[in-house]
């Protein structure tokens, strides 16, 4: 990354914020129950277990059973938050989510931790790179990937207010702070972090911080990038994209996910239907990653501020 004066303050991991927010919603609403599948220490749902042991179920290493149990609990009036690694709850529990949660549109909140490749050393089996595509393929689900601890906390509260299924992707590493505490947060409404008219960078999750850094560098090169935290992939904020398309005319979409079926696909479909504009994509492409330090992986697989800058320079030439 070329020199920039901007640095972002590192906050806590979004999974940690999830655990804390669970306590808050659990205090307010006694119908909130939490189920985990032997990853409570990693998803931070253990915080809820400590406070409300009678409303916490560690079901064991049974993701399919966990999802269907949540379906039954929701049908009997509870509001289950279920957590595991994103790779496990989505991939192993997908049919159960389809039949038992999405189809009857039940009030189940699904938290998939360790999203993306930035989990690092554990490698491909634990790295969820397809969860957004899968969650978006569940009709009626809200699909949300908060960028930092403050937006994650807000997202958990929004999820508890929403009557219907929600998927939240949580991250393992510490995440750069991009929002203020108590940030105004609504599913389906992007948050503009920086205004600009040369292009729009649309990002979510860990790549929002990278997008902010990239925009700073681009500014030093005379390119004014608008930055949108598109935390909700479904429903997508079509309006903000349409306006950005008219006003900036070019896009970079950055996400920690496979190329197919994630934020990039959603943004491309939205723009094509409304105000088409050139787009460059910063994502994992069509592959898996490997073990390694998170920063090394993001660099090797091309999901850094530097990659966003390069993509931005390409896309403004296509305007």
């Amino acid at each position, binding site marked *: 990354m070329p020199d920039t004066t901007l640095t972002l303050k590192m906050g806590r991991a979004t999974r940690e914020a999830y655990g804390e927010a669970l306590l808050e919603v659990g205090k307010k609403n006694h119908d909130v*129950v939490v189920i985990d599948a032997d990853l409570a220490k990693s998803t931070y749902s253990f915080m809820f277990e400590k406070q409300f042991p*009678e*409303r916490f*179920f560690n*079901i*064991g290493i*049974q993701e*399919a*059973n966990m*999802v*269907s*149990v*949540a*379906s*039954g*609990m*929701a*049908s*009997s*009036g*509870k509001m*289950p938050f279920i957590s595991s690694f994103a790779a496990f709850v989505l991939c192993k529990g997908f*049919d*159960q989510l*389809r*039949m*038992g949660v999405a*189809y*009857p*549109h039940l009030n189940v909140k699904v938290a998939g931790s360790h999203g993306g490749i930035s989990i690092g050393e554990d490698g491909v089996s634990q790295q969820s790179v397809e969860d957004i595509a899968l969650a978006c393929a569940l009709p009626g689900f809200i699909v949300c990937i908060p960028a930092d601890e403050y937006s994650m906390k807000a997202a958990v509260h929004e999820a508890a207010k929403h009557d219907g299924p929600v998927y939240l992707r949580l991250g393992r590493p510490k995440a750069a702070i991009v929002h203020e505490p108590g940030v105004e947060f609504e599913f389906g409404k992007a948050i503009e972090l920086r205004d600009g008219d040369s292009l729009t960078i649309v990002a979510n999750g860990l790549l929002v911080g990278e997008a902010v850094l990239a925009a700073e560098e681009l500014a030093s090169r005379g390119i004014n990038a608008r930055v949108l935290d598109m935390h909700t992939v479904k429903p997508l904020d079509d309006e903000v994209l349409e306006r950005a398309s008219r006003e900036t005319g070019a896009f970079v979409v950055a996400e920690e996910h496979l190329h197919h079926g994630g934020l990039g696909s959603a943004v491309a479909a939205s723009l094509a239907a409304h105000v088409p504009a050139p787009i460059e994509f910063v994502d994992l492409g069509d592959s898996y990653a490997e073990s390694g330090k998170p920063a090394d992986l993001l660099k090797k697989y091309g999901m850094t501020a530097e990659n966003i800058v390069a993509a931005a320079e390409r896309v403004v030439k296509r305007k």
Partner: protein
Amino acid sequence: MAVAPAEVSIESLEEIARTLRRDILRMIAAANSGHPGGSLSAVEIVTALYFGGVLREDPRNPDWPDRDRFILSKGHGAPVLYAALAERGYFPTDELMTLRQVNSRLQGHPVQGILPGIEASTGSLGQGLSIGLGHALAGRLSAKDYRTYVLLGDGECQEGQVWEAALAGGNYELDTLTAIVDYNGYQLDGPVNAIQSLEPFAHKWSAFKWNVIEIDGHDLRAVLDAFHRARTHHGQPTCIIAHTVKGKGVTFMENNNEFHGKAPTAEQLEVALSQLSE
């Protein structure tokens, strides 16, 4: 609310069972599509639940929070559930003839939320016992005394998720949960024993810490007695292994796996109905 068993005679239950069998065959024939074999094998089980005073339920109040839950995990047996719900008064019996037609609430497999009395969307095998577990845990948490019943197919018990739920149900000592396995011995492609045997089946449930009762699933007295024993057994969930005959009640369908998922022709329907006349 359902009538108490003491008030209902076995003869009248047998008559209801015949009515359900006729409904099943008529609606599948009208749809020219559906699963007669596994619907007919479960008729006495479902009759006992809805008409033998087993389920605490109210057709006029299907969302009653204190109702007992019945989940048809073997969703392809939907016709037997639809027939029972209609005869109980959850919806008009005329509607049975809309089975599997466009705009019908009677989907090919049960769908939660569109038809009163349907507790879960099933048809992808293996999920119902887990859903029942969720209902039972929610009930325990809310200090409610409703019971949860889940009807599984024998072939369905080849699904791994059934054993995830069995493991958890046993460990949670959920004595408000009762599984019934319609052990008719056949699955789509042939005999269960030839494809992927479940035996020793009762031992498996016992090993998972379940109270196990084995019965002839067409003997209404035995079925009612098994539900009574399940209700009065404490500290463990109960699994009732009901030995049944696929296609029961129609001579040319009994143990004839051709009728796993095939509708009778008009002529076959006529013969079948004559065998099930009042």
